[in-house]
């Protein structure tokens, strides 16, 4: 059963690698790139939200920081937007230290509520920050000044860049899963007090997880700004940005290596297709579907598809035998 699951995951990985080459339609290629981008932020969220069980609903704050860092580097310093990515990551470290230390005293729902408040506050600050474009936001370069601007007509180069970043993140998460840190994070996730009573330095490891999670989410934000060429308070710091990460990870399987990727493969095409089919008035349709999905996950499979699929397979195998 586990071997077959592995085969499915390898198939998904291969499909991801060749998917955009299979179609010449830029619409589908763009969706493929957005799937990988969403998988990066959901996988980054997964480090703190899935493995360590600290359900953040405010990760958009990192995404927004990354996005704004990229376009501030372009508009204010004249640098290629991607040059802002390291600054975004650096800012994410500072934010993690500032936010993590006090908020990690909170547990469960209280922690989640604190993260929502932090993201909302950051959104408000940026909306009222004229230097960063205020409510209007920031634009990227309209025409490429040099290849470093990473401005491509085709979505394929973006897809390739995102895939490399996702691969790095997944390898890092895979390594972490097997390391002492992964061991501790899972212990914290399944019982913080029990982990503390065994001598796990809870706050230190939660902070490490937040550093990794925040840095990759900020990088995802920068990549988003590079590809889309625009960022505003809503697309950077909006609550739906955070909700997307949580729902994707929860649907695929929070605390599993490939869960967020599987969630992204299902949800991003759903969102993009409903947006395309229903047009401007129907852009919220995907979120109605998200709500239904959240209820179904909570009711039938809190561990997401990663828990649900093996259960189905286990139910079928005795009959086959």
């Amino acid at each position, binding site marked *: 059963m586990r071997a077959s699951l592995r085969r499915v995951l390898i198939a998904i990985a291969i499909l991801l690698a060749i998917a955009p080459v299979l179609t010449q339609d830029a619409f589908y290629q763009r969706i493929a790139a957005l799937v990988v981008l969403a998988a990066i932020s959901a996988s980054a969220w997964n480090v703190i939200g899935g493995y360590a069980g600290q359900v953040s609903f405010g990760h958009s704050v990192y995404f927004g920081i990354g996005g704004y860092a990229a376009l501030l580097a372009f508009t204010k310093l004249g640098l290629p937007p991607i040059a802002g990515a390291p600054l975004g990551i650096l800012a994410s470290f500072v934010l993690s230290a500032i936010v993590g230390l006090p908020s990690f005293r909170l547990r469960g729902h209280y922690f989640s509520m604190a993260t929502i408040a932090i993201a909302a506050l950051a959104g408000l600050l940026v909306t009222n920050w004229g230097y960063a474009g205020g409510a209007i936001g920031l634009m990227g370069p309209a025409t490429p000044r040099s290849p470093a601007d990473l401005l491509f007509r085709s979505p394929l180069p973006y897809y390739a860049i995102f895939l490399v970043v996702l691969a790095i993140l997944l390898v890092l998460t895979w390594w972490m899963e097997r390391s002492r840190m992964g*061991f*501790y994070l*899972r*212990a914290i996730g*399944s*019982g913080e*007090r*029990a*982990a*503390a*009573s*065994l*001598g*796990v*330095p*809870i706050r230190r490891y939660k902070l490490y997880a937040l550093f990794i999670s925040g840095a990759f989410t900020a990088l995802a934000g920068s990549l988003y700004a590079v590809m889309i060429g625009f960022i505003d308070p809503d697309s950077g710091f909006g609550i739906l940005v955070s909700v997307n990460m949580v729902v994707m990870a929860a649907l695929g399987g929070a605390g599993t290596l490939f869960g967020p990727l599987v969630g992204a493969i299902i949800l991003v095409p759903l969102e993009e297709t409903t947006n395309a089919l229903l047009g401007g008035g129907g852009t919220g349709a995907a979120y109605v579907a998200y709500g239904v999905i959240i209820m179904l996950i909570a009711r039938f499979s809190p561990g997401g598809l990663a828990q649900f699929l093996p259960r189905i397979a286990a139910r079928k195998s005795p009959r086959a035998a």
Partner: protein
Amino acid sequence: MSEALLRVSKLAVHYGDLVGIAEVSFEVEEGAVVALLGANGAGKTTTLNALAGLVRASGGTILWRGERIEERSAHEIVARGIALAPEGWRLFVQQTVEQNLRLGATALAERARLAPLLERVFSLFPRLAERRRQSAGTLSGGERQMLAVGRALMSDPKLLMLDEPSLGLAPSVVDTMYETLGRLSAAGLTLLIAEQSMELALEIADRATVLQTGRTVLSGTAREIAENPDLHRAYLGAAF
């Protein structure tokens, strides 16, 4: 008189306006078995949690080998040699028996000692050795208690605190558990056992402390406590 391994003086814990414990005082000598007795809600779990650094003391002192530790965090306390097998076991149910045990060795300074400690736990609880690759969530109540105790032993503590080790277990399992605790004590381990079942605890204990509504009301040798007419009053309230 020898210096006590653990000396708790006027320990208080508050949860906001609520009083967890108001004034708890007792001592634990090295190698002794001390029972912490009291009815449900007397403050036994809060006392152990404060000693383990899981809740912050709002008053009083905890002296461990002469050092004040009431401000220390949980991981610093485990590293000093105090381990807790908590009430309700608090196992990592998704992880295997062996992974749970290895997590118990988190505070161990020398990783080379992990293997011998694991072997010691498996020799104390052979059932755990049989189920080492099984996830903790599939264990029976008795096996879970064994795992909770085994996990606490993995940090090679000087003082093992057990919170209600008999709670919810079949009588035969309780007997086996207390036999094992007796063997650990005979091997020199200091035990602090919080129990509602006073008969069980007083059978194994050298000394006992009785709590009532967050205060120490009786302290003495196990025999003195067992024969004290105020014991039942402390358990069942002034009406008795």
